[in-house]
């Protein structure tokens, strides 16, 4: 038997917060994925909104390219406010 397509599930736990990835499930289509996600991932008031997306639609970065992707940010300390020294008498900025 062929498996139903795999969907990734994202839940917004309350208004004002991002949808967050919570897991995945198989469903025949997106409508069923939402219904099943409701039953599986929100049985105890965990959410107010659900996004589903077919897993195959997600393009992920390659862990092997971690260094070339993320290392350039490491030595750019001037992007953080703590890089800039302020005079002691200045109370708020």
């Amino acid at each position: 038997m062929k498996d139903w397509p795999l969907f990734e599930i994202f839940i917004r736990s309350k208004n004002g917060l991002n949808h967050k990835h919570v897991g995945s499930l198989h469903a025949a289509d997106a409508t069923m994925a939402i219904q099943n996600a409701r039953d599986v991932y929100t049985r105890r008031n965990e959410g107010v909104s659900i996004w589903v997306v077919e897993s195959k639609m997600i393009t992920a970065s390659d862990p092997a390219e971690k260094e070339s992707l993320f290392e350039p940010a490491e030595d750019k300390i001037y992007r953080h406010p703590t890089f800039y020294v302020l005079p002691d008498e200045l109370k708020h900025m």
Partner: protein
Amino acid sequence: MAIQNLETHFQEKVDQEIKIEPKDWMPDAYRQTLIRQISQHAHSEVVGMLPEGNWVTRAPSLKRKLALLAKIQDEAGHGLYLYSATETLGISRSELIDQLHSGKAKYSSIFNYPTLSWSDIGAIGWLVDGAAIMNQVALCRTSYGPYARAMVRICKEESFHQRQGYDILLTMCRNSETQRQMVQDSVNRWWWPSLMMFGPNDSESPHSAQSMKWKIKRVSNDDLRQRFVDMTVPQAEILGIKLPDPELKWNEERKHYDFGNIDWDEFWRVVNGHGPCNKSRMEARIKAHEEGEWVRDAAMAYAEKQAERQDVQSKIQYS
């Protein structure tokens, strides 16, 4: 990178408590161990619904029936979280189900024991879920990200299971002497199989050392078993129930309870298929799967037809 370097780098990450994620490089044996362990865990959740399902229609009140149904629904969800975690390792759901049905994959032997009375449902919640939680709390820190995340979610839900079981037993023990005796009978039957749930003694568990090194396993079988015994004894005292072990005794020197020897012959008999319910459990699983096939096919056919129809409509719109 040469394979040895990859392995060293992998072990360094594990030692530094950096979680391993699905697309990261991992040794093949690590992957295979995880597939075996997580799927076995998933199968246990699914087969675990069967002994409890036996009492849904005979629960003594609507309140008990609702709680039992909610618990069983949770087990289905837990099975799904764990199957999903296993699938991130590159094995399909249908392969996993096939492995269960063909007997290639195992599930927890505890579910091969029958639920003979309502108090067995209480004993399962208290002892079986109690033992499972002990194991699962330790696994929240396991090195594979998706497995750890599934465990966190499961642990959050599981504590209700143990309490509903204990609540059933407490109510019965305080109701009447006859009911207390029913509870005692259940505990007599479930105590030793619950201790077996933690697996063979550390000295007899050949893969444990590697699993500990990879931090798949965080606490040894014997340590978890000891914690479970220490936690359970005072709970039994509150129920007014005697745990069926004449050697069970507080050891002031060790600051732990000593307990008697486990019948490992029985354990291996049940693991190897000769428990009271192995055959009926598998028959029930296979029957449910086969009889559900037309539903799965129909849902897929419907989804495909809907997609086709939408496709045609959008073509008409834009032509």
